[in-house]
């Protein structure tokens, strides 16, 4: 019995370590692909691709290599074709971690790709939204700064650009860190 437990444990560990990434032509394709793959139940994650293989897009999709065929078929069925499929993440193909968390004492900042969200820890109030350079960042900041994290609108409902999308990832991460029961 123990043998079987260990067998499955090892398989799981090996599979989770063996991941590949898909590079797309533009961000809207990454977002579409992520939605399609998640709806199909694939274990995918949006990541920053390694700098030397960027193709003009700051985001890529990481997936379990054992699911490669299913992932590619699901995308093909919706006419989405990745620019590149990198089956191995060994060595220098390791993707850049999308999130960076910095604790400033009374404040906590989460950066996702090119966007940062900062909250005051004692009140969970959003005190700063920055980064990006997209035209909707000032609007996103105006709508979110001063609001409590559990009472603020989701950036995906307000934004229209890659920055809005990256901010949503940062917002989800900071909520996960701060609102865990």
């Amino acid at each position: 019995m123990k043998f079987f437990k260990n067998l499955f444990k090892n398989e799981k560990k090996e599979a989770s370590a063996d991941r590949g990434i898909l590079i797309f032509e533009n961000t809207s394709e990454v977002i579409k692909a992520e939605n399609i793959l998640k709806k199909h139940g694939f274990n995918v994650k949006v990541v920053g691709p390694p700098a030397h293989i960027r193709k003009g897009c700051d985001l890529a999709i990481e997936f379990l290599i054992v699911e490669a065929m299913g992932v590619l078929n699901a995308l093909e069925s919706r006419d989405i074709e990745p620019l590149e499929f990198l089956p191995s993440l060994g060595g220098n193909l390791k993707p850049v971690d999308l999130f960076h968390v910095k604790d400033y004492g009374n404040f906590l900042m989460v950066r996702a790709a090119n966007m940062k969200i900062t909250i005051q820890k004692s009140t969970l109030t959003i005190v700063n939204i920055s980064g990006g350079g997209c035209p909707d960042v000032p609007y996103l900041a105006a709508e979110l700064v001063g609001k409590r994290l559990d009472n603020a609108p989701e950036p995906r409902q307000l934004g229209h650009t890659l920055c809005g999308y990256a901010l949503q990832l940062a917002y989800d991460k900071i909520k996960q860190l701060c609102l865990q029961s």
Partner: protein
Amino acid sequence: MSETIDARGLSCPEPVLLTLEAIKKSGSAEIEILVDTDTSKENVMRAAQSMGWQILEVNEESSGYKIKIGKE
């Protein structure tokens, strides 16, 4: 006598955090914040307003901007 925060050379969110700490701790009715980018200027002004402070003056200087804020 107003307090001055020099946030030049710092990237967001640090100018905002220094401003918020100053608002919290300062006994002054006015605070001057020095920043060197448009983004920091906008972020500091937005943070101050969200704390109920008013923007009294924004002056462009050779090294950036001087923002004066005051309690409403």
